[in-house]
Structure formats: structure tokens, C-alpha cells
């Protein structure tokens, strides 16, 4: 089996295009009535792709977005846009022999990442399997709506899934607008202001990891996590796609910090770290445990490793 190759950062062939676009959009903007139109509506409409903005533009956009959120949710939300650190490639480990299927990770994730409560959106799905059933490549017997009084249940085992942060992500090649891409630290992100909501990436993802805002998200004001990242947990809009980002607002802004799901897991089934650091825990797991990845036959090379510690 080939090792996952770490691809060079995607080049941004945007200089010429930006210019053309600037010129074209500029002329459109001139043609539009601007007298009584609220300037920020036009700014929002013509907002550029995240990767095409320079620092100054980005700052302006962040400020406008913070204002918009303040108006909409009535709380001050802080949006960072930190770039990936060099020499970092995040990887995730999940010890299946420990997981008890309690779903604490699911709810910690919902809270940390401002997922819609109504309608419910959850980035983590815990699958339950009957012992002895098919489960490695064929998930037809998976039950995601199990609801016992107590876990773990006799005769069952659990396999949490979420975005596998594929090194070779089919969702990214599918997206017609480049609204989703792989960052240099390996995290697959979505620009919520660029996504057109075509949902092609959802059809392409083999892990059911992408979720759509079928209507505007419903989050109680006092439950909003105000420490956010542009590409991560800032509140989303109706009509766009979202997914797990390895808690980019934590792991990138405070190097060494764990994602919420890792932190909450009561049995320590979840591991996380920099795969390029030879002394990291995730490296240890990869080198010493019998790891496998989901649907390996699809050659997506997830950076999400399942293993059995015992």
C-alpha cells in the first residue's frame, strides 16, 4: 500500500483572474443603484473567495462579519483567521477497543462548533454494530439511532465516524467552486461565504461527513461559542455545507490544544496530534498499533486512524 503522500500546497492561480474579476465586478457594481443601498449588502454579495483576499481585505471582511453576527445573534463573536503552522500535519486516532458509545463527543462537538440545535446538525456519528456482524467495509448493519438506558451494551460495539480529513479528498475535487479545500496542515475546510450549496461534495464524500443547512441554523444565544475561526466554528448560514475541521479554532490558534471531542472522551479513546512530530502520541499509535482506515479501497487516505489498543 502506498503511504499517503503529503501533497504540496495548492498553488493559487488567481492573479490574472482576480484582476479580471475585479474589473468585471467593478463595472457591475457601478451599474447598480448605490444611492440608498446598504453598502454592506454589496460588500457581502461581492465578498471574495477566502484564499483570494489579501490581509487588508480579510481584516475588513472579518470586521463586517463580526458586525453581522452581532446584529443577528446579539453577542460579540470573535473571528480569527490564523494560517496553518508550518511543519504541522494533523492526524487523529480512535481506539475502538475503548469506545463505549456514550456520544459525549457528539454533544461536545455540537457545543464547541456552534452546530444548529434546531434542526439538529451533528458532525460526529457514532455507529453501533452487533458483535459478529459485517462492519469493516459494508456499513449496512450500522445503527446510528441506538438509544439504550446505559452504555456500553452487552453484545454490541461502537465506531464513531466524522470527517476523516482525507489526504486525497473526493469532496474537494468535486466542488465546482473551490469553496472547499485542503489546508497545508491537512484540514479540509469550507468557506461558508463562498459555498453555493450545490451539495456535490455531499454526494462525493464516502463517510457521510458533510452536512447541509437545509434552513437557517437555530442556536440559542446563550449557548453560542464566541471564540471562532473563519474556516471553523463561526455560525453558518442557510443553504451551505459544513463539516468537522479538527476544531481548527482550538488546534490552530493554540498549538497543542485538543479538539473538543478528544478532550471530553471519558475513556480516552480519542488521540490527536501532529503527525510530522516524531514524538507525538498520534505518531506512536500509527507506528505501534494495528491501524486501519475506513473504506481503504477508495484510496482517500484518511488522516483518521482506527486501532485497537488491546
Amino acid at each position, binding site marked *: 500500500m502506498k503511504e499517503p503522500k503529503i501533497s504540496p500546497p495548492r498553488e493559487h492561480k*488567481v492573479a490574472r*483572474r482576480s484582476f*479580471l*474579476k475585479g474589473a*468585471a*465586478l467593478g463595472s457591475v457594481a457601478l451599474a447598480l443603484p448605490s444611492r440608498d443601498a446598504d453598502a454592506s449588502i454589496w460588500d457581502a*454579495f461581492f465578498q471574495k*473567495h477566502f484564499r*483570494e483576499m489579501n490581509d487588508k481585505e480579510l481584516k475588513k471582511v472579518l470586521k463586517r462579519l463580526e458586525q453581522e453576527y452581532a446584529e443577528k445573534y446579539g453577542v460579540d463573536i470573535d473571528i480569527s483567521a490564523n494560517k496553518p503552522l508550518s511543519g504541522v500535519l494533523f492526524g487523529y486516532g480512535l481506539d475502538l477497543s475503548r469506545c463505549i458509545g456514550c456520544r459525549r463527543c457528539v454533544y461536545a462537538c455540537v457545543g464547541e462548533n456552534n452546530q444548529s440545535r434546531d*434542526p439538529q446538525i451533528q458532525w460526529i*456519528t457514532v*455507529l453501533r454494530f452487533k458483535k459478529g456482524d*459485517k462492519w469493516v*467495509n*459494508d*456499513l*449496512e*448493519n*450500522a445503527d*446510528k439511532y441506538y438509544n439504550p438506558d446505559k452504555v456500553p451494551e452487552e453484545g454490541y460495539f461502537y465506531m464513531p*465516524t466524522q470527517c476523516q480529513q482525507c489526504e486525497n479528498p*473526493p469532496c474537494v*475535487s*468535486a*466542488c*465546482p*467552486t*473551490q*469553496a472547499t479545500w485542503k489546508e497545508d496542515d491537512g484540514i479540509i475546510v469550507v468557506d461558508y461565504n*463562498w*459555498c*453555493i*450549496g*450545490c*451539495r*456535490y461534495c*455531499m*454526494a*462525493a*464524500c*464516502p*463517510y*457521510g461527513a*458533510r*452536512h*447541509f*443547512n*437545509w*434552513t*437557517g441554523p437555530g442556536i440559542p444565544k446563550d449557548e453560542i461559542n464566541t471564540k471562532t475561526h473563519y474556516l471553523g466554528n463561526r455560525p453558518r*448560514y*442557510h*443553504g*451551505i*455545507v459544513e463539516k468537522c475541521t479538527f476544531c481548527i479554532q482550538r488546534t490552530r490558534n493554540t498549538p497543542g490544544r485538543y479538539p473538543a471531542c478528544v478532550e471530553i472522551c471519558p475513556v480516552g479513546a480519542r488521540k490527536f496530534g501532529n503527525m510530522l512530530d516524531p514524538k507525538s502520541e498520534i505518531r506512536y499509535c500509527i507506528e505501534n498499533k494495528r491501524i486501519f482506515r475506513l473504506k481503504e479501497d*477508495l484510496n482517500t487516505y484518511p488522516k483518521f486512524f482506527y486501532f485497537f489498543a488491546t
Partner: protein
Amino acid sequence: MMDQIKHFFIALKQIVKGSRGYYIWIGILGFFMLLGWSTYVIQLKRGLIVTAMRDQVSWGFYLSNFTFLVGVAAAAVLLVIPAYIYNFKPIKEIVLFSEMLAIAAIFMCIMFIMVDLGRPDRVWHLFPFFGTMNFPSSLLAWDVLVLNGYLVLNIAVVFYVMYRIAHNMEYSMAVVKPLVILSIPWAISIHTVTAFLYNGLPARSFWNASILAPRFLASAFCSGPALMIIIFQVLRKISDLEIEDSAISKIAELIAYAMGFNLFLFGAEMFKEFYSGTAQLAPFQYLYFGLHGYHGLVPWLWTALIFNLIAFFLFLSPRARNNVVTLNMACVLVIIGVYIEKGMGLVVPGFIPGTLGEIYEYFPTHSEIFVSLGVWATGALLYTLMLKVAIPIYTGRLRFARGAATVGESAAIRGSVTSAEL
């Protein structure tokens, strides 16, 4: 400039004035457009939650209709081949009208994509130069390009020919022929790219079968021409357009071959899936027999299969296809059969069971059906208006010659001028 304005008003008058039947037809279309577009406004406000689509089945009725209509648009080429390559005259005369149908179909395709988008306001992100089109990686980007190219190509041919005729000028085959020849591979490409859109997703085993694109083409070559046969018969009833029986019979014969091929490919796919019986069988099982107690699509798919089979035999028999009743019956059966098979029967099972093994039974909501009816009505209106101007030009009743526009005076290109009104 003055001429242009004058011509515009002539065309406008042609559209506004019509028989009682014409007004009733426009009224019906207007009603469905109103219904559809008002429902769409609600969808815009509340989001796609008014549809039955969810994370598990993230594409549904809109994309089904889109897929079917790409087939209709592509099928225009089936008439172009005998008309221009083999010089089969009866079809050559009417090929323009099937190209207009292609134009209307592509417009409907674009509308179906638009109503399916979560953020139609951002659609420009998808355009080359303005946005950040993910070309060549994303098949959806390819689809945008080939569909729009096909649209431009067909508009160019139709407009050129109509313009020349309307001004009492001969149209030059040196101009038309290369465009038409180009439109043949192009038609195949729009349908192939649309098939690849689904085909290129290894996450969805149901679509990830190499037989998908050939089956797409084969079924398109059944439903598209069948639709045209019906439309042609209606046109020659209500207008002075002459369409020879031999043209219709030829098209029917072509459908028979296409359907035969389609059924063969279907059989090949069924054999592979059911005989090997791997886990990839699940979507087929869901379609034809039901899976884990879910069988929402089973009756539909069997209907489609039976309809297609009956139609195949009707088209195959020269006696049946030369008889008005059986011919039209066969056409209707094929249209319904392919509509089910290529629409819901193709899009939905790609998601069932889902990538995490979940089964979510999808069935379109009222909103989805209303919006879709609105799109169909808009397309039908567009086609009607095109015909309303094009037919009188074609039959010689309408001319924009040399500034002074005359109706029904100029030398008719195709003989008799009757007073029949569309």
C-alpha cells in the same frame, strides 16, 4: 436600428395575437408558472428544508428532472444525424424544431440546477473568470461549460436559419453544416458529462459503474425523440406546418433500436449485480425488491420496466409504429418509463443505502413538485413562443424583408400559404 425595432414589434405582435386555443394554452402555462414560482419564493425564504431532501439523500426530484431533460436536449442530435449526414429530406425539414426543443430543454436544465442550489445568489462563484470555477477537476464545472456551449450552438443555428428565411434570403449550408456537425459530438458530450457527474463518485457504488454513460445515451435516444414525435403531431394539427408521415415513422424506428440497446444494457447491469450478489447489490435490491422493509420506489421502477418493454415491442413492429394510436401509446410509455428510470430511479438509489449504511426514504414534497411544474411550464412557454414566431416564418406567412415587413405576401419557401393560425 429602426428596422430592428420594427421587427421586434412584428415578432411581439406575432406572439401576442393568437387563436382561442393559444390563449387557453398560455393561460394554463401561466397558472403553473405562477404556482411554481410562488412556491419557489417560499423555498428561497425558508431554505431547502421545504423539500424532502436531507443529508442522507441530498439530491432528489430537481436533479432527477435535470437529468431527464439533459437527455431530451441531447436527443435532438438523433434527428440531425439522418437529416444532414444521410440527407434524409423529410427529417431535415423539421430538424430546426427539434433544435428549438433542445434550447428549451437546456433552459429548463439550468432552471432545475438553480432551484436546487442552496445559495442561488452566489451562482456567479461558479462562472469562469468571475468566480473560481474548479476546472478541470469538478465534473459539475464541466457540465456548466458543455451545457452552455450546447445552448449557444443551438441558438446560433436556429437564429441564423430563421433570420435568413425571414429576410427572404437563402441560408448557406456552408455555415449551417459545420455547426450542425459540431452539435452531434456536443450533444453526446452533454449527456456523457452529465453521466460522469454521477459516475465519477466512488463513494456511491450505484453510480460508479462504467455502464452508466452508455445507458444514459441509449435511454435519452428513446425519450427525447418520443417527445418530439408527439410534439410534431400536435404541431401539424394546429398549424400549417407540414410534417411527413415518413419522418415520424423513421424517428419511431430509431427509437426501437435505441430502446433495444437500452434494454440490453439494463440486462447486462442486472446480470452482473444479481449474479455476483456483492454488497453493491443493495441499491438495486432497494429499487426492484425493497431493502430492509423499505420499498418506496419498487412499484415505480417496475412500472418503468414494463412500460419500456411494451413500448419496445410496439416500436419494433412496423404495423404498430405506423398506426397513430399504437405509435402515440408507445411514445407516452417510453417517456414515462425513461422519466422514472432516469430520474428518481437514478438519482435516489445513489443515496440508498447511504455511505454510513442508512436508509432514508425520499419522496418529493408538494413544494418540490410545484416548483418543478413551474419550471416545466416555463420551458413549455419558451418553446411555444419560439414556435409561434418560427412556424409562420418557416411556412412563409411571416417576413421581415427589406425593412418593410409583410405578413403572408412574400414568396413562401415551402409552397402553400394557408390561413391556419397557430
